[in-house]
């Protein structure tokens, strides 16, 4: 039952946010505050589930619902694929009024059949949405029957929008993988190595894996599966034979990491590939855990050598930009681990972080951010209302804002430089190469000659 699933997800013992909550608040679930009518922002649970699973590149993602859920949203993310493109196609049952009256199960069954016949995917992920959930379509049953009769895994993703926020949807997507996918096939025993890892909560946005894989290749570390970045269905089914899990994007899929540890004894660590120090720490932790799992101990030395070389190379490449960025003021408006992981690099540039938003950040994230901001609590803010953000930028309190697409136009209309560091971004910022890219993009943004032009008043508005 979805209800039990929700309770289970809300009770996640390893979730730092959850641990800090009272018993009553735990019951209310994740991000309940964000859902105030008339003042809510962000996606629904279905959105979150789709974001988390869509990066599985070789399966068909079928949305069971009316046109809005897929028609308004397909092919709208930059998660990359090194091969198959099926995940970018939009599949939906496009429910009509008649379907709502008569029920949509039959149409769903036919849709699954059509898709398998036409596109021959290794699996179909079927997303439940609000309308069919409300009229009682039993998506799980249809998927079960389809799996049996059609001989291809058809996986129900039970996260209709109204059950909660995007973050909750991420977790429900993780549960889906645990219930139906991970551990359903076994790799060749000769093909299991102590240096096999999974990346949990990495979505290969703008192909960021391409900035990480060369580092891992050099160390002899292999990604069994991205969960779910650039994932192939088959790799996911066997990823329970990895020896180490790295959990990225902290909160989104912590349930997957913890339950894989419980079921298959795979140790996990939390880490990030954003920022130089973070990347190095992640590589070190990864190496140490691999060695603990039986990898040759020289992996640690080799990792240290690689880190030393790459960090030096990275700083060398960043330095030319530093002179052009020194003293510039940044408004960092993101959340989670990015609250602090980018700050040290900005400081290293000689830039001043005037504020950083600690939305969606854990207590640990906040502590780290506070430490980096030298204990200045005023610099740590929750949400900044748009009018206030506009005022800050218009009055020049920051030279550039780093944020997500949602606040892009607050910055641009205030005629202030802006860089996207959230999911819709156009450039990859992971690992050492990614940090160089980020610094370069900041330089290009803040030093673009356009600012002088757009800030100058029209000639007739200048008082004599």
């Amino acid at each position: 039952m979805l209800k039990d699933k929700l309770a289970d997800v809300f009770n996640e013992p390893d979730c730092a946010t959850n641990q800090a909550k009272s018993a009553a608040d735990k019951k209310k679930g994740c991000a309940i505050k964000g859902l105030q009518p008339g003042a809510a922002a962000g996606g629904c649970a279905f959105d979150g589930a789709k974001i988390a699973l869509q990066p599985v590149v070789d399966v068909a993602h079928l949305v069971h619902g009316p046109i809005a859920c897929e028609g308004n949203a397909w092919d709208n993310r930059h998660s990359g694929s090194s091969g198959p493109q099926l995940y970018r196609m939009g599949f939906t049952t496009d429910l009509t009024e008649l379907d709502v009256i008569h029920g949509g199960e039959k149409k769903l069954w036919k849709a699954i059949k059509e898709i398998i016949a036409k596109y021959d995917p290794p699996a179909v992920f079927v997303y439940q949405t609000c309308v069919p959930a409300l009229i009682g379509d039993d998506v799980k049953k249809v998927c079960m029957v389809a799996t049996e009769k059609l001989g291809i895994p058809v996986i129900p993703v039970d996260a209709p929008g109204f059950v909660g926020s995007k973050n909750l949807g991420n977790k429900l997507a993780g549960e889906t993988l645990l219930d139906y996918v991970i551990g359903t096939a076994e790799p060749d025993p000769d093909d299991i190595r102590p240096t096999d890892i999974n990346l949990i909560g990495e979505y290969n946005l703008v192909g960021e894996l391409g900035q990480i894989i060369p580092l891992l290749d050099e160390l002899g570390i292999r990604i069994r599966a991205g969960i779910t970045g650039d994932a192939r269905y088959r790799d996911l089914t066997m990823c329970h034979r990895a020896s180490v899990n790295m959990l990225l994007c902290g909160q989104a899929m912590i349930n997957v990491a913890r339950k894989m540890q419980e079921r298959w004894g795979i140790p996990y660590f939390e880490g990030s590939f954003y920022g130089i120090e973070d990347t190095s720490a992640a590589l070190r932790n990864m190496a140490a855990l691999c060695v603990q799992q039986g990898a040759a101990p020289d992996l640690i030395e080799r990792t240290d050598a690689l880190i030393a070389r790459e960090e030096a190379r990275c700083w060398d490449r960043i330095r030319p930009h530093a002179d052009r960025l020194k003293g510039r003021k940044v408004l960092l408006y993101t959340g989670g681990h990015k609250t602090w992981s980018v700050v040290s690099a900005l400081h290293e540039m000689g830039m001043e972080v005037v504020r950083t938003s600690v939305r969606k950040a854990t207590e640990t994230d906040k502590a780290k951010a506070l430490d980096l901001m030298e204990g200045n609590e005023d610099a740590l803010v929750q949400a900044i209302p748009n009018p206030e953000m506009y005022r800050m930028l218009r009055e020049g309190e920051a030279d550039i804002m780093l944020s997500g697409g949602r606040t892009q136009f607050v910055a641009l209309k205030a005629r202030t430089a802006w860089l996207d560091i959230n999911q819709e971004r156009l450039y990859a910022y992971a690992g050492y190469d990614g940090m160089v890219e980020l610094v370069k993009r900041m330089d290009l943004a803040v030093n673009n000659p356009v600012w002088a032009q757009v800030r100058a008043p029209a000639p007739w508005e200048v008082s004599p």
Partner: protein
Amino acid sequence: MNAAVLTPRKAASVNPLKSSAPLGAAMAYLGMAECQPLFHGSQGCTAFAMVLMVRHFREAIPVQTTAMNEISTILGGMDHVEQALVTIATRAKPKLIGICSTGLTETRGEDVGPELKILKARNPELADVGVVFAATPDYAGGLQEGWAIAVTALIEAFVPAEKLPTDRDQITILASSALTPGDIDELRDITEAFGLSAIVLPDLSGSLDGHVPDAYQGTSYGGTTLEDMRRLGASAATLAFGASLRRPAEVLEARTGVPSRVLDLPLGLEAADALIVALTEISGRPVPNRLRRQRSQVVDALLDSHFYYGGKSVALAAEPDLLLPWARLFAGLGAELPVVISTVNTPELAAVPAASVTVGDLEDLEHGAAEARCDLLVTHAHGRQASARLGIPLYRMGFPMFDRVGNQHRVSVGYRGTRDRVFEVANLFLESLDHEHEGEDGHAGSHTAPG
């Protein structure tokens, strides 16, 4: 010859052509001044629509949600509507809140409209805010239908049912969702050339035309005001552009007695002529010289371009309001339309100059274009995947257009719009000619389909 309208029984829509009706309604509301659209649904309904509009217009899109959850879905969402209205009225201080329902709330059977009066009466915060409701279930129609439902709702809510003394120099323009802010500006210019002033409903030209206001505003920047709405009864005539607006045009005429005409989008020589004829009749003034010269430029554009259209095979997919004029434009230049896809079935589809029109999706476009070995795909930005797979060039038209900038200023109506679009497509054909004859002497020989 009438086009046969085909409605294949596909269970899975693949690569949807359609956006949702509530998105269309919200976009219409954004053409109202100082307005805050509000989706009555779960917050994803708003988030998806907002992101898509942001990517198309490259503007902040001030839309909100009633944030329905499991409990309110079961027990009823009126208190969520009430809470949302009060919160928005207090925070964003809009002049108007436009509510659109969604699949979620319509499946529940929630009837918000009749309750609005009660909500307004018991919340003093709402005293100075106009509130309007459009029933737009996601499972019926698409963007242009949702837009039209919102326009009807706006007329019923804010245009007094009374005859006003007629202002001979004022007309009302009902704008279809297929018109860009640039198109609306062009229509206004043409109208003014006849000494008429136009009230446009809804008017995206002030709100989503991409300008930089002097201060922060949390609502739409510009658009039709409620005062404008009260003056619609004084117009000499109402011109509705796009057959999707037939119903709002009828409702407006019934309320005000102002005679209305429903015209096709004035894209293409004949359709643009129909607009000019209408304005001549309404104003009683002759066609100004500059418009005569512009018409002559269209004729010249057609002459210069017909070489490249003749015999070309085009696959076209759009909502009906856009589909019809574009189909006529291609057919009128000698191109063939073996593949024509619409989002919904409407009576106007029979008039499309093609053997058949399929109510379908972009998979139908892709398969059809591959089979007919088409030379050009014409649809919105989502056609890019099909274009890449087939190696057939894509001419982008319609909503959404998320991989191009400047969409709000693209003008496709009137003589100038027609002239520019005719040339633009001709240049695409010319470019593929260049590719096919690389290394040759540039002589345009017999054509072979690419891919």
